[in-house]
């Protein structure tokens, strides 16, 4: 019996390859080849001067040397991570809180559907439109300043977009608003999936809700938390639309809100393909390292 089944399976297995064709074909064409091409370009001097093409001239690691000779790249890496953390920390805290409340039957919260709908809403807003909206709202003479002056909080307009931390804060706030609803729903579902007998047992033992949360809920949520963390980190490293449009691609003040991808975009935009290539490779490496750290970190903890 087992033998027959096995034979059949073997006969069907070529379909495994067939069904993989579209993915592999498209991946190779639109991702893998471009990836190798990007690597290849990074070794050339290749840009446009006016309407004249300069290069490609092979210059070995010239582009890398030039890029690594100034500290900019690390500054943009730092900016990106700072803005990600600024948004991610409140996101995870608020999401855990709301998730716990939503999934706690003893609280009997009313209007759950309304609140869930509302907090998920910003996730669907076009990021560029959202950033453009924040730019107009928070400009020196914009509605927020006018409002704060009308109610007497401010005497003169606060220049949100010329101060380092208010600019970064706005970027983080937007990222937070766009993603905390999503995370809440994910965590809440995870919490609902936890075997209720565990909670009952804890109740019998006289545990407080805080204890239950930290001792039972959180450890059981770890897989989801890791998933959220990894996806958020990957998304965070690719941060572009929001700071790009909010600061008009400048990353003002003094490029303190310029992200890695914005920097890459600058080079792509001025058709400096050699430098873009080198920068892409660096991005690839940075993302790889950070992802590895997170994977290692999460796996190591799971072993315990």
């Amino acid at each position: 019996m087992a033998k027959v089944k096995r034979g059949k399976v073997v006969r069907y297995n070529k379909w495994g390859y067939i069904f993989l064709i579209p993915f592999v074909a498209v991946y190779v064409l639109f991702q893998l080849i471009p990836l190798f091409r990007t690597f290849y370009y990074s070794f050339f001097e290749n840009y446009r001067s006016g309407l004249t093409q300069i290069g490609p001239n092979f210059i070995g690691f010239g582009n890398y040397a030039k890029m690594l000779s100034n500290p900019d790249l690390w500054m943009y890496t730092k900016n990106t991570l700072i803005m990600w953390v600024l948004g991610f920390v409140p996101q995870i805290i608020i999401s855990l809180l709301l998730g716990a409340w939503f999934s706690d039957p003893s609280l009997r919260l009313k209007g759950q559907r309304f609140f869930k709908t509302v907090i998920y809403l910003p996730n669907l807003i076009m990021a560029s439109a959202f950033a453009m909206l924040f730019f107009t709202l928070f400009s020196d003479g914009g509605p927020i300043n006018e409002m704060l002056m009308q109610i007497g909080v401010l005497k003169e307009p606060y220049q949100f977009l010329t101060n380092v931390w208010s600019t970064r804060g706005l970027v983080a706030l937007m990222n937070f608003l766009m993603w905390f609803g999503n995370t809440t729903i994910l965590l809440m579902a995870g919490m609902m999936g936890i075997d209720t007998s565990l909670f009952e047992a804890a109740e019998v033992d006289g545990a407080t809700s805080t204890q239950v949360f930290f001792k039972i809920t959180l450890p059981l949520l770890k897989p989801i938390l890791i998933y959220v963390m990894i996806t958020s980190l990957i998304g965070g490293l690719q941060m572009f639309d929001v700071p790009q449009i909010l600061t008009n691609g400048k990353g003002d003040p003094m490029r303190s809100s310029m992200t890695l991808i914005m920097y890459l975009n600058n080079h792509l935009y001025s058709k400096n393909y050699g430098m873009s290539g080198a920068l892409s490779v660096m991005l690839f490496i940075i993302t790889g390292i950070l992802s590895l750290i997170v994977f290692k970190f999460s796996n190591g903890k799971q072993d315990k």
Partner: protein
Amino acid sequence: MKKKVLSALLTTAMLASMLVGCGSSNEAPAASTDAAPAASTEAKTEAPASTEAAEPAAAEEGKVFNIYCWNEEFKSRLTDHYPGYEEVDGTTGKIGDITVKWNITPSDDNAYQNNLDETLLKQADAAADDKIDLFLIEADYALKYVDTDYTMPVKDLGITDADLANQYQYTKDVVTDSNGNLKGVSWQGCPGVLIYNREAAKAVLGTDDPAEVQKSVSDWDTFTATAEKMKAGGYNMVSSVNDTYRVYSNNVSGKWVQDGKIVIDDNLMKWVDDSKKMVDAKETGTFDLWSDDWSKGFYPDGKVFCYFGPAWLINFSMAADTDGSIANQGGWGATEGPQGFFWGGTWICGATGTDNASLVKDIILKMTADEDIMKEIVVADDDFVNNKPAMEAMAADTSYQSKVLGGQNPLAMFCAGAEKIDLSNLSAYDQGCNEEFQHAMKNYFDGKASLDDALDLFYKGVEEKYPELTH
């Protein structure tokens, strides 16, 4: 040949359908039968003529006319003043049976240039209807396009020197390539003036007479002194430090880029010093030009004493058509200001490979050399057009009054300014350098960076935009 046959067929088909239309209209009410035969006879008499005479031209000329530019200024000029131009919607129009397509990309951050470059580089391979026929360039980057083969020599379009004899010489010098070929034609002259808020002038200086106001802004020292008075009177001297930028940057002693190196002129450093002082004294803001905050001074509540700009700024940008704006009430005045300068200026270029050469020629001639249209533009739009004798005549004409400027005739001032314009310090990199310089210095003015850091930021920005440059 194929095209000829096709158009002949089309003409026949149209004629046939018209006749059929007439035939069927017998059943229609009397009123339309009256009109229909007339139309059909017209069509009959016209059709043979067009198959003989207009046919060769029709075969050469494309049906789609692509214009590349960065804002709506030229579009509104064409709409208002080019005979036979009909607007279809925001981005299309019609001249006769040719469809005019506007491809408008904002110039900010070199976006317009990049887009234009991409399309020009593909021009040779593009389908006839996708080819750029006409594009506009600005003084800041004119040189980049002048010395390439992508821009057609004007004489190849059939425009002679005599056609352009009345134009200001400087508008020709800029766009003449190294072989002496003229590559573009401009309809406007861009000498700049100081445009002041009459109400503020009366309140603080006690007069709004241009000659009197000039005494308070005749050089940078008096300008600074007046700024203090304005501050005391509740007005910002200028809306933003960037308002005075062009006045300094046009009076430099050398180009932005010399031998592949970026050079910051002393006069620009003077702009930085003067501006820093004004910002610290809260006599002005640091807004980007064209931002909403910058334009607040176009309204009385904005409390701004003056802007610097050429005629097109007054007309095109200062919200003259909006109720409640200063321009709408004729509340501006114009005077020479501390130094002469120019700003902008738009040149019309024919793109090599255009399939509408005769229309390009006609547009250039009508919009830049037809004296009647030029005068019409001055009267309707208060622009300063590129026709020396006409402008000088109008400058002397007391019946011409600018509404925005409260009835003042500023043309004499512009004429004098136009004579003095010297564009010898232009480089192909000006747009990027100017933008990055203003942007980097904003950080310094706002107190977010030391001067050295801001200068580093400037170099960094320019070198990212133009990888071939160093400092």
